[in-house]
């Protein structure tokens, strides 16, 4: 659906050149929710703005549905943009237009007749749950409601792609959740491909299928969200994961332990198996859970436990080997020999 090849975006002013996007290539499948995460200045906005050519790439290709946008003339580009919706952190609604008029504008831009516009706007208001706010001005709406108008406007011309630049960053947690749910519904109902930029791993966990981690204009890690959560490779990625799966034990707690502290991670189906109880049945060790959590990422469980094992050294070693074999993921945090 979306194919980006060797995309470079350099901002040049008289004084200096700033690299926004540094040679990024990626492919996003139809119907996928693709997340891009990174700290401020990583180049996320630069990248997403190149996807509808709000920012003109310095070099590289941006193909949407097989068409390289960089080769289009102004008029063809406008047509193409009607099929690429975009929503923004600060909503960017026209303040002099009512909710209805804001959505109608997108349809008018696509040359629809007033009759078609009326039917479609009402449909969209229904979809985003704002039918009763039709004649209000943006100033009279809450942040969440404004973003819903933004979404309705972005979806007006039945786009194939929806670009979201920090669409929930200005919203409180519960509003964020409701907007994410709306995006999920749209993705499922309409088969819409969504590209979503964020700096919150919570958002990624909630909604994305695949994820790219950006740093200094480059994608440094990419993969299925679950895999990245289970197996982050880059330090930055680990940082982001830690923001959701915090497992810092107090140092004092670790020091006062007599046994071996291990960290086990259960992925997918394994998380539901009774590995731990099997362990205690088969080996003469005692276990003491210090910390534990099961996260559901895209409805697949990811369990992490920190345990203290006590018993004969030999037995503990065998127990550790057993868990390693069952889970393929074990880390010995502290071993008191």
């Amino acid at each position, binding site marked *: 659906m979306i194919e980006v090849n060797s995309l470079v975006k350099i901002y040049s002013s008289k004084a200096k050149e700033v690299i926004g996007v540094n040679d990024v290539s990626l492919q996003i499948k139809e119907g996928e929710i693709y997340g891009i995460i990174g700290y401020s200045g990583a180049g996320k906005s630069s990248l997403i703005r190149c996807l509808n050519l709000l920012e003109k790439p310095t070099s590289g290709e941006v193909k949407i549905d097989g068409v390289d946008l960089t080769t289009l003339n102004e008029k063809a580009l406008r047509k193409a943009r009607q099929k690429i919706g975009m929503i923004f952190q600060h909503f*960017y609604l026209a303040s*002099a237009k009512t909710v209805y008029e804001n959505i109608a*504008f997108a349809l*008018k831009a696509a040359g629809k007749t007033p009759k078609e516009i009326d039917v479609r706007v009402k449909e969209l208001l229904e979809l985003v749950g704002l039918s009763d706010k039709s004649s209000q001005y943006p100033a009279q709406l809450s942040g969440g409601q404004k973003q819903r108008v933004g979404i309705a406007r972005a979806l*007006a011309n039945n786009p194939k792609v929806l670009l979201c630049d920090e669409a929930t960053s200005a919203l409180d947690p519960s509003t964020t959740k409701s907007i994410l749910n709306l995006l999920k519904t749209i993705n499922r109902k309409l088969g819409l491909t969504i590209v979503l930029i964020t700096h919150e791993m919570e958002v990624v966990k909630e909604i994305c299928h695949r994820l790219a981690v950006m740093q200094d204009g480059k994608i440094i890690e990419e993969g299925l969200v679950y895999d990245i959560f289970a197996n982050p490779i880059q330090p930055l990625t680990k940082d982001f994961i830690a923001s959701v799966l915090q497992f810092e034990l107090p140092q004092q707690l670790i020091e006062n332990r007599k046994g071996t502290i291990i960290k086990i991670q259960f992925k997918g189906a394994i998380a539901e198996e009774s590995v731990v109880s099997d362990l205690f049945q088969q080996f003469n060790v005692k276990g003491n859970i210090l910390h534990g959590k099961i996260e559901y990422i895209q409805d697949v469980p990811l369990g992490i436990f920190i345990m203290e094992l006590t018993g004969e050294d030999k037995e503990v070693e065998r127990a550790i080997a057993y868990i390693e074999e069952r889970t393929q993921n074990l880390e010995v945090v502290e071993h008191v020999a």
Partner: protein
Amino acid sequence: MLLESLQALLPELNTAVLQTIYMVAVALVSAIIIGLPLGVLLFVTDEGLFLRNKVVNHVTGWLVNLVRSIPYIILLVALLPLTKLIAGSTIGPTAASVSLSVAAIPFFARLVETSLREIDKGVIESAVAVGASPWMIIKDILVPEAKPGIVQGLTITTISLIGYSAMAGIIGGGGIGDLAIRFGYYRYDNTIMITTVIVLVVLVQIIQIGGDKISRVVDKR
């Protein structure tokens, strides 16, 4: 005695006020018809906007600055040949409205440009992202979004024009200024002098209050 002289003055005053309104109205219409598009042009051809064009932007900007840098009283005299050509005469309110228009157009254009600058760039960008044409963005986004500022600009332009129109009175342009010069200055008639001042003050107040009110009504922010 005061009342008597006022009464005698009334028909003259009436004509003068109407002449002033006429001159200012002609100049205002010119400002809206030519100055508004000029202000929009200055804005949309600027760096980073959807119709950026260095040449057009600089030439327009230079022209606007040129006219604006000439004091009105000098413009008035300098434009006499043009006035003769357009109005067929160099005296009277119609003649005065030529130079008033020339002064009002760039003045208003800059005010329009300034109020367009206050629109959040993101709002314009969101219109670009939706695939709207430049004309649609101008007509449906820029002008409506800047409306409160444009109305205020119109108020300021009107008030400045009233001041300029009084200057036009010096060379026989008609209107309240003309009246004040002829009677108040040449004949030392204080009654007329004070009356014209009061009329001008009231006129300006009404326009300011009315303008503010309209600007508030169209402001949905």
